[in-house]
C-alpha cells in the first residue's frame, strides 16, 4: 500500500503544523517510516468515529508521545438525532416512543425516567397500580442484566477476550427474548407509558422468567470463573482508568464508576422510586477505583438484579388479572392489544365496548388517541439509577398536550467527560480499557 496523500476530512492545508496521514490498514510500515522521517515523537491520532473499540461513533483525539497519551479529547455528536426536539412535536404518550431510542442498551430506563416525570406533573404518582410498578421494576432489572452483559462483552472483546464477548451476547439474547415476549419488541419498546405499562403480561411469561432465572443462576458464575482471577484480564484492567471519589464528584460521575470508589450511592436505595424500597437487594461496591473494580461491580449487580427479578416474579404470581394502567379514564390509554385473524390490533372486547356499549368510552378513546391528555404546567425531574448511573428527564409542561421541553441528563454523556482524566499519562492501549469501563452508549450521549 502506498501512503495516501490526501485526506478528504483534513486537507493538509487546513492543519497548522505537521503532516497528515490517512491510515487505511496494512500500511503500518509506510506510516511508521514516514513519521520517523518527520523526526518527531509527538503524534496526534484521530481515533474514530468509525472504530470498533469506541463503543459506537465516539471520536477520540489522542496526542501521543511514543505510546504514552499526553492529551485525550472526545469528539461527540455523530449520533445526534434531535430526539428532544422531536418530542416537543408529539403527544405526551408518543414521547415514550422517542426517548426509548436514546440509550439503546437500556431503553426501559429512558422510558421510566420520562414517564415518572410526567406522572409527577399529572400528580398521579400514588395512583399507579401495583402490578404496573412491579412490571416496571421487573423490566428495568432484566434490562440492567442485558446492559451489563453488553458492557462486559464488548469490554472483553476490546482487549481480545472473544469468549467473554460470545457468552455475553449469548445470555443477552435470552433477556431480549423475554423482552420480546412481554413487550413485543427486542428494543425500542415504548412499553412503560404515563399511567402504567402498555400491556398486561402475556400468558406463560412468568414460567419463561422463572426458567431464565434458573438458567442465569448457573451461567453468571461462569463469568466469574472465567474472568475474576484470569491473569491476563487482571493485568489489563487493574489500576487502569483510575478515578477517585473526589474526581467522580467534580465530574458528576455516577453508577458503577462511582461505586468502584467504595461509595455505595444508588438511587434505588437513597431515593427509591417505583417501589424499590420493597425489594431486598444489596449495592455492591469495590475500593480500587479502577476498571477491574467496575467489572466486578457489574458482575455482582447482575446477581442482585436477578434477585430482584425473582422477587418481582413472586409478586406478579399473586397479581394475575390486576390492572396495569391508572384508573383515570382521562389519562389511561384505553385499549389493550390482541392478536386477531389479521394480525395485532385493538382487542375485540375493547372494540365492542366502545362501538356498542359506551358512548363515554368511545369519546375517551377518540380524545386520547387523537389529542392525548393535557399535563398541568410545571417542571419535574425524577432521576432513576440506570446501568450507567443517574439518568434523569427534566420534563417541562406548559399545560398542553405535548411536552414543552424534555431534556435528558444521560449518564453516558456526563461520564464520558472522565475520558481525559482517566487516560492521560497512560498507555494508548489503556485508553480503550478506560473508555470501556465507563460503558458509554453513544445513542444516549448524543440523543
Amino acid at each position, binding site marked *: 500500500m502506498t501512503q495516501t496523500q490526501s485526506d478528504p476530512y483534513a486537507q493538509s492545508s487546513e492543519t497548522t503544523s505537521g503532516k497528515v496521514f490517512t491510515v487505511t490498514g496494512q500500511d503500518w510500515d509506510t506510516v511508521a517510516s514516514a513519521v520517523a522521517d518527520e523526526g518527531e515523537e509527538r503524534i496526534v491520532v484521530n481515533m474514530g468515529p468509525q472504530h470498533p473499540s469506541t463503543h459506537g461513533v465516539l471520536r477520540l483525539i489522542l496526542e501521543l508521545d511514543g505510546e504514552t497519551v499526553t492529551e485525550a479529547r472526545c469528539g*461527540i*455528536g455523530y449520533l*445526534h438525532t*434531535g430526539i*428532544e*426536539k*422531536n418530542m*416537543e*412535536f*408529539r403527544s405526551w404518550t408518543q414521547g415514550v416512543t422517542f426517548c426509548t431510542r436514546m440509550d439503546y442498551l437500556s431503553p426501559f430506563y429512558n422510558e421510566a425516567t420520562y414517564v415518572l416525570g410526567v406522572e*409527577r*406533573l399529572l*400528580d398521579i404518582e400514588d395512583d399507579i397500580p401495583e402490578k404496573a410498578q412491579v412490571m416496571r421494576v421487573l423490566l428495568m432489572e432484566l434490562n440492567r442484566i442485558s446492559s451489563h452483559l453488553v458492557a462486559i462483552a464488548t469490554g472483553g472483546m476490546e482487549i481480545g477476550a472473544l469468549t467473554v464477548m460470545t457468552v455475553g451476547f449469548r445470555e443477552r439474547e435470552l433477556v431480549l427474548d423475554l423482552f420480546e415476549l412481554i413487550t413485543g419488541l427486542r428494543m425500542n419498546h415504548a412499553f412503560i407509558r404515563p399511567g402504567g405499562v402498555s400491556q398486561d403480561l402475556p400468558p406463560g411469561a412468568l414460567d419463561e422468567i422463572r426458567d431464565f432465572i434458573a438458567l442465569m443462576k448457573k451461567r453468571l458464575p461462569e463469568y466469574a470463573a472465567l474472568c475474576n482471577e484470569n491473569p491476563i484480564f487482571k493485568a489489563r484492567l487493574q489500576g487502569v482508568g483510575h478515578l477517585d471519589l473526589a474526581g467522580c*464528584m*467534580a*465530574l*458528576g*460521575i455516577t453508577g458503577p464508576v462511582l461505586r468502584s470508589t467504595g461509595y455505595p*450511592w444508588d438511587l434505588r436505595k*437513597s*431515593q427509591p422510586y417505583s417501589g424499590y424500597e420493597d425489594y431486598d437487594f444489596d449495592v455492591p461496591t469495590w475500593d480500587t477505583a479502577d476498571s477491574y473494580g467496575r467489572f466486578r461491580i457489574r458482575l455482582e449487580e447482575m446477581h442482585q438484579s436477578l434477585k430482584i427479578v425473582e422477587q418481582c416474579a413472586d409478586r406478579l404470581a399473586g397479581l394475575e388479572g390486576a390492572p396495569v394502567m391508572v384508573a383515570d379514564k382521562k389519562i389511561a390509554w384505553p385499549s389493550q392489544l390482541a392478536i386477531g385473524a389479521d394480525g395485532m390490533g385493538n382487542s375485540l372486547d375493547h372494540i365492542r365496548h366502545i362501538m356498542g356499549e359506551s358512548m363515554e368510552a368511545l369519546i375517551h378513546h377518540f380524545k386520547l388517541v*387523537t*389529542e*392525548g391528555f393535557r399535563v398541568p*404546567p*410545571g*417542571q*419535574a*425531574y425524577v*432521576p432513576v439509577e440506570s446501568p450507567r448511573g*443517574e439518568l*434523569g428527564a*427534566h420534563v*417541562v409542561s*406548559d*399545560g*398542553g*398536550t*405535548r411536552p*414543552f*421541553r424534555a*431534556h435528558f*441528563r444521560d449518564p453516558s*454523556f*456526563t461520564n*464520558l*467527560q472522565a475520558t481525559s482524566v482517566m487516560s492521560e499519562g497512560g498507555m494508548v492501549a489503556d485508553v480503550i480499557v478506560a473508555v470501556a469501563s465507563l460503558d458509554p452508549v453513544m445513542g444516549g450521549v*448524543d*440523543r
Partner: protein
Amino acid sequence: MTPKEPGEFDEVTPGTEDDVTDLMPENVLPVEPGALEPEVVDVRRGMFGVHGSGDTSGYGGIVRPVVMPSGTPKPYGGWFDEVAAAFESALTTAGITSAIEKVVVHRGEITFFIRRGDLLQVAKTLRDDPALRFEFCSGVSGVHYPGDKDRELHAVYHLLSMTHNRRIRLEVTCPDSDPHIPSVVSVYPTNDWHERETYDFFGIIFDGHPALTRIEMPDDWPGHPQRKDYPLGGIPVEYKGATIPPPDTRRSYT
C-alpha cells in the same frame, strides 16, 4: 422613662422610609409581593396549532394564558424550610442577600430562581456550606419561553446533596437580546459539556466557560436548534396517494 409629649414625636410621613412601623418585624413582608404572582409565560390561542385553516367550530377563538406555577410563601414544608433557612443565612454571610428572586414549591420539588449575576457565588455557597453541601450537579438544561418577555431563556440546574440526600433546582433567566449567564464550570466541572450543549441548542453564552464551542451540532451549524423559533424541519411524505405534512406543520391540538 417619661412618656413623650405629643409635640416631641418626630414628624412621620406614612409610606416613607421614616415610618418605623413599616420596619417592625410583624410588618416586614416575607417576600416581595411580585414573587408570588403567577408567571404568565405565553398566551394560547385557538384549539388547533395551525391558524387560518377555516376552523368554523368556534374553538379558534379560545384565548388562554399559559401560567407556570407561582411563587410559594413560607413555610415550604418538610426539609425545604431547613434548606431555605440555611441557604438564606449562608447567602447573608457571603454578602449577597438579594440573590433569590423567588421560590417555587411544586409537586414536591423546590425551585430557587436566582439572579443571574449572583449565580456563581450562589453555586459556590451551595456546594461548600456544611448545612447545604450540594456537592453534585446533574448538569444544566435550557428552556426557551419565547412569550416570557425579557426572560426568554431559562437555564435550569438540578443539584443533589448526597450528604443530606436532598435535591433542589436552580433556575436562572436571561433575555434573548442579552443571552449571557455566568458559567459554573469552576464550581462544578461536570457542567463543562452540559453548558456546551445548552449553548449549542439554545445560544445561551456561559461567560467564563473554558471553551464554549458546539458539542452536538457540527461546528459550522447555523442557529440553535432547540429554540422555539427554530423549525423542526422535515419533508412531506406521500403515502397511498395522500400527502402527509411534516410533524411541525400538521394540524395539532395546542
